[in-house]
Each structure stands twice: as C-alpha cells, then as structure tokens.
C-alpha cells in the first residue's frame, strides 16, 4: 500500500515537473514562464522529498521558489512583458539545429541510463532516519565539505559585488548622458 502511494505521488510530481518545464520553454509571456518555473521547482522539491533529501527540498522551496523567483518576477515586471513568438520562423536553420541538439542530448543521456538501469542502478541501499536531515547536512558541511562551504560563500560574495557594479555602472551612464 505504501509503495503504491509513493508511486502515485511520484507520477503526479514527475508529470507536473515535465509539464511545467515544457511550459517555461514554450510560453510567450516571460511572466507566465517564471510562474511555470515556480511550479517546476515546487514539484522538484516533492521528488527530492521522495529521495529522502529533506533539507535540500526545504532549501529548494525557500531559496529558489522564494528568493530567486521573486527577483525574476521583479525584473520581468520592471522591464515589461516583451512578447516573443518562440515558434515563429520555425524552419530556420538555427531553430532546427536547436531542436536537433536538444533531442540529441536527451537521447544520449537516456541511452546512458538505459545501459546501466538493469545492473547496479536497480538496487539502492536502505537509508536511516538521519539521511538528508538538516543536522546531518550541517555536520557534513562543517567537517568533510568545509572547503566547498567556504568557496560557495566566496562565489556568492563575488556575485553580489558583480551585481552592484553592473547596477552602478548603468547609473553613471545615465547621469553622464
């Protein structure tokens, strides 16, 4: 019974994930695309929970669907909805090459998974209750992966400085003009 319920939740979450990803790429209005991406991130968080990655799922909802997407929506509202027809000029060489390349990437990954699916991927270890919990992640971050933790903070700092410089540079251009 529990197995069936997990399957139902997985199918719903995976379908929502796939449908919202297609919506992000194919919708004309960037605002609607950003809203579809929020749905995509939420359904991905459900998949993370099924993989017993509780802390990553919480971080996904808080950081991605919360902070990052609000920033996106602010910028889209600031710029204004520039309509674009993604499928116009459908038969240009560029579009055909884009679709072929994306399909080639997808088929290549699926073949790689299919070659391995019957063997080692079939059996997963059982996990205990602490796997994926915040305390466990925190202990890993401060012991085994301390260097990654510190370098991540430097990356975020550099990005923040870059964002400030980009903003102040355009402001100086406006005052000169």
């Amino acid at each position, binding site marked *: 019974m529990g197995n069936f319920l997990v399957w139902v939740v997985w199918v719903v979450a995976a379908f929502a994930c796939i449908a919202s990803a297609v919506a992000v790429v194919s919708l004309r209005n960037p605002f609607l695309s950003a809203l579809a991406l929020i749905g995509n991130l939420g359904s991905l968080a459900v998949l993370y929970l099924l993989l017993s990655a509780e802390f990553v799922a919480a971080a996904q909802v808080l950081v991605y669907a919360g902070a990052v997407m609000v920033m996106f929506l602010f910028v889209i509202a600031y710029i204004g909805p520039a309509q674009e027809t993604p499928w116009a000029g459908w038969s240009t060489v560029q579009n055909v090459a884009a679709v072929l390349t*994306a399909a080639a990437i997808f088929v290549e990954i699926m073949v790689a998974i299919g070659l391995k699916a019957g063997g080692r991927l079939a059996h997963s270890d059982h996990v205990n209750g602490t796997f994926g919990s915040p305390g466990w992640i925190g202990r890993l971050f401060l012991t085994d992966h301390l260097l990654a933790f510190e370098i991540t903070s430097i990356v975020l700092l550099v990005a923040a400085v870059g964002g400030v410089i980009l903003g102040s540079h355009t402001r100086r251009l406006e005052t000169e003009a």
Partner: protein
Amino acid sequence: MLGPGIAWYLGVSAFLFGVGALGVLLRRNPLIVLLSLEIMLNGANLALIAFSRHAHNGAGQIFALAVMAVAASEVCVGLGLVVAIHRRNLALDVDALSELRG
C-alpha cells in the same frame, strides 16, 4: 526503497536537462534563456540527489546545495546584465546583441 527506482528519477532529470537546453538554444529573450538555464541546473540537481540516495552518500546533496548557490549567483549577475541592457534601450534579444562578435 519504496516507489520507483533511481533510473526513473534519472529519466526525469534527463528530460529536464533536454528541455532546458532546448530553451537556451531556441528562445531569444535573455530572461527566458536564464529561466531555461535554471531548468538545466535543476535537472542536474535531481540526478545528483538521486545518485546520493542510491549510493547512500551525502556528497551528492552537498553538491546540489553548491549548485543552488551557483544558480543564485548566476541569476544575480544575469538579471543585472538584463537590467543594464534595458536601461541602455537596447533590444532584449540575444540574436541582436552581437556587438562583440569577432
């Protein structure tokens, strides 16, 4: 583990990566390109977390959190660029922004 095996999660992650790649290559609005990049990063994240669960190893989840931080940085700089382009009254079209082409 209950429910579908790791290969099913990897299939979803491969589809997400492919759709994201399609968006990056096909769309011309830089905002949608950034959104598609997020889909690609999330596809990779799902694979990392699936393998972390499969191997019972926390390194995958740590890597996924690092990818999230990188995605936040990328959005910060990317949106700064988009706003700077908009303030200069240039067209928001990645095909039209070809001034640096060699």
